[in-house]
């Protein structure tokens, strides 16, 4: 049985971020996923370890892989073939789900480096002022609705909308910063691969990514809460 498309699952480029375990090949020269263990998501999809990636190309790669690997293709080939297909498809699905989304991709790169520490994010003071105003506006909106004061509710809703727009602007700025940090990381990663050792620039880029990601998550939680208030 063909495990994966030949060009897709080649051992990662040797270097500081290559997988810990070498690929185990089966008697046909294909990667044996069971014996190899869990490969990293980039390798599963046959991609270089870079944050900048073409999502259209990613979609095409995912679909062609899953068409060949899905357990439904092996339903009549017995339980062992199905079990194998389940495992292979799960790796492709997990890799695609993680890499398809930019924020998750960033988190994954940090995780691979053992650098995704769950530290408490400290938002800047300026942002805290916005959040404070926002909470006031949400409370006012709830109160006005509870009291049936339509005019006050409408005013509070406008305030909430305004505050939301500000948060969304901040989120867009954070995304731009993250994209810039991702480009720095890609360059540092490429240089490290060439050098065969991790360069200091890579750790610096990770620090910027970690800060950006913490900021982004903080804002996303806020926006989720705002969405929730709006639908109540």
């Amino acid at each position, binding site marked *: 049985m063909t495990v994966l498309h030949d060009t897709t699952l080649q051992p990662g480029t040797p270097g500081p971020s290559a997988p810990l375990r070498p690929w185990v090949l089966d008697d046909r020269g294909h990667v044996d996923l069971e014996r190899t263990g869990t490969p990293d998501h980039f390798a599963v999809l046959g991609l270089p370890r870079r944050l900048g990636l073409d999502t259209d190309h990613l979609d095409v790669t995912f679909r062609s892989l*899953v068409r060949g690997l899905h357990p439904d293709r092996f339903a009549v080939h017995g339980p062992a073939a199905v079990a194998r297909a389940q495992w292979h498809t799960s790796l492709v699905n997990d890799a695609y789900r993680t890499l398809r989304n930019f924020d998750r991709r960033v988190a994954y790169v940090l995780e691979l480096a053992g650098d995704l520490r769950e530290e408490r994010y400290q938002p800047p003071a300026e942002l805290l002022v916005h959040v404070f105003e926002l909470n006031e506006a949400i409370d006012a909106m709830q109160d006005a609705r509870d009291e049936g004061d339509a005019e006050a509710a409408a005013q509070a809703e406008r305030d909430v909308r305004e505050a939301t727009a500000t948060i969304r602007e901040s989120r867009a700025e954070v995304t731009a910063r993250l994209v810039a940090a991702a480009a720095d990381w890609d360059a540092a990663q490429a240089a490290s691969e060439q050098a065969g050792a991790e360069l200091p620039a890579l750790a610096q880029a990770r620090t910027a990514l970690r800060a950006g990601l913490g900021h982004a998550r903080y804002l996303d939680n806020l926006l989720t809460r705002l969405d929730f208030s709006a639908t109540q």
Partner: protein
Amino acid sequence: MRIHIAASSPAPKSDTRATVGIDLGTTNSLVAFVGEDGTPHVISGPDGPLVPSVIAFGKDGELECVGCPANARLCEYPDRTIYSVKRMMGRGAEEVVAELGMLPYQVHRSAGSSAVRIEVCGRRFTPPELSAFVLRELKHRAEVALGKPVERAVITVPAYFNDAQRQATKDAGRLAGLEVLRIVNEPTAAALAYGLDKRPQGRIAVYDFGGGTFDVSILQLHAGLTEVLSTGGDTHLGGDDIDQLMVATIASQLADAGIDVRGQLELVQRLRQAAIALKIALSDADKASVQVDLRPLRQEPLQLEWQRADLEQLIAPIVERTLAPCRQALRDAGLQPSDIDEVVMVGGSTRIPLVRQRVQDLFGRPPHVEIDPDQVVALGAALQADIMTTGRRDMLLLDVTPLSLGIETVGGVVSKIIQRNSSIPASATEEFTTSVDNQTGVVLHVLQGERELVADCRSLARFIIPVAPMPAGLPRVAVTFLIDANGILHVTGRDVRSGTEKTIEVKPSYGLCDEEVVRMLTEAFDHAETDIARRQFIDARSEAQQVIHATEVALAGSARALIDDDEIDEINGELASLRASLATEHAEPVRAALARLNQATLHLAEVALAGALNAAVQNPAVEEALSHGPDPAASKPHHGPRLS
């Protein structure tokens, strides 16, 4: 004494085994298959395509009948006629009581697990065993229609079913002698049946409002690849809730009139059936009325008259409750209502005009209602069976898991390891170690759900990972959790240091463990002979009853005058011995007596038929019908779907 109609020509026996698609519903079940021409067909029985998911037992606890005949006994024997089994699948005893309310039969906890057992006349059954009776009926029906054994099936479940409910469904298939090739989500199957997979691209919303559950799925199509983007729903919301609400309304009106129906099981069943009749009629008409026998509380029957507006006002909150999961599913898929290209309606409750209107309001486009909403899921399941076994279609379903998977961590908090709406199969590997020296095992508690606390999530299983005694923190065990394409969890372990595989015994919280299924299979095999004998007797009995009736009718008619008294005596003698044979409860004596009666009535039948024909040719309508032969459309056994 009967005119036999030749059965339709049997299916070609090119393939020795058939694979069917089964919609195992709360209220009704169906079986479908894909014919040689590549189109799916629902298999009809004598009572039509729907098999009510109702199982009737005799007073000794032996299986009596399944489907329409069982449904007909619901009012007469409420304590040994079981319905809504699907709502008990993979559930605990307390939950079943809480959800189904007061039940006419006893509900028990299983020994050693929380799974429910239903007691019927002294015998205890698990929900998968009860569902297996329905599945066996469908299997039998398909085998008769296809003329070959049916051993494999694709079975559908609500998209929102958790691991235990899916596993219970798979166990039911196994107990019915079916290899379950795949558990498919109902909305996904419906999308397949609509042939929407033939669209090169597009986003589809499937709104599935059935008897017991509500489901919504957002799908993306891409050249034969049907990818589920998100799914949501409510496992406690269905047409049954509408029925219950109607019954409660009627009961409270009766209470106002001084009639207390509480505890009147048969009467409440009649009210339920009247409510269902009203509900169905009001989908087409602006007003409807129905009469309910109120005995023994009141001699005079109750006359119910409802306007469609009454019903709509009553059920508006229920319909509204279906819209929140729709909005959530759109959000999860990152889409707006206007991004949806097609909306598909599934489930009998979508016949309600108010439901269609509210769905149209939400998505801004009229929904598809071309295929019978009761059949669409079974047709899709048959297509999936065909995809998986023939390889003649380049199509693939990529489903998602409806609920997040997590493990219990310190302080009763759930740590999520696979997020909801992840494409399945999905896997996650976690490493575990020990906290005490010479610890020999690590206890894991696996849960499913979206909440943060263990108490708020669904317990799937607890198990112990065996560890070699070592100083604390030294052992390293990697546990892989895999949710397969059916949405069912598999757990494997590996010792990271030695690389050896570990066997993990998973004890399901609400299901059957493997040994239990094997034991039930053995028991089912032991019972198989008695079950078959019972079935043959029931078939023979119903045939005998029909023949007895027909003979009595003929004897009472004009043909009587044309027959000798000796012959009449012989016929009466055979009638008596046929009646007596029924008491044996065995098929053989009944068949023998039936053959003798048929022999004795040959002359009577001839005379009666001649008289009937004479009468008929004097009736121009009958003459016309006879000259044209039978209407081919009327006797067509299968209804193919229209593919848009």
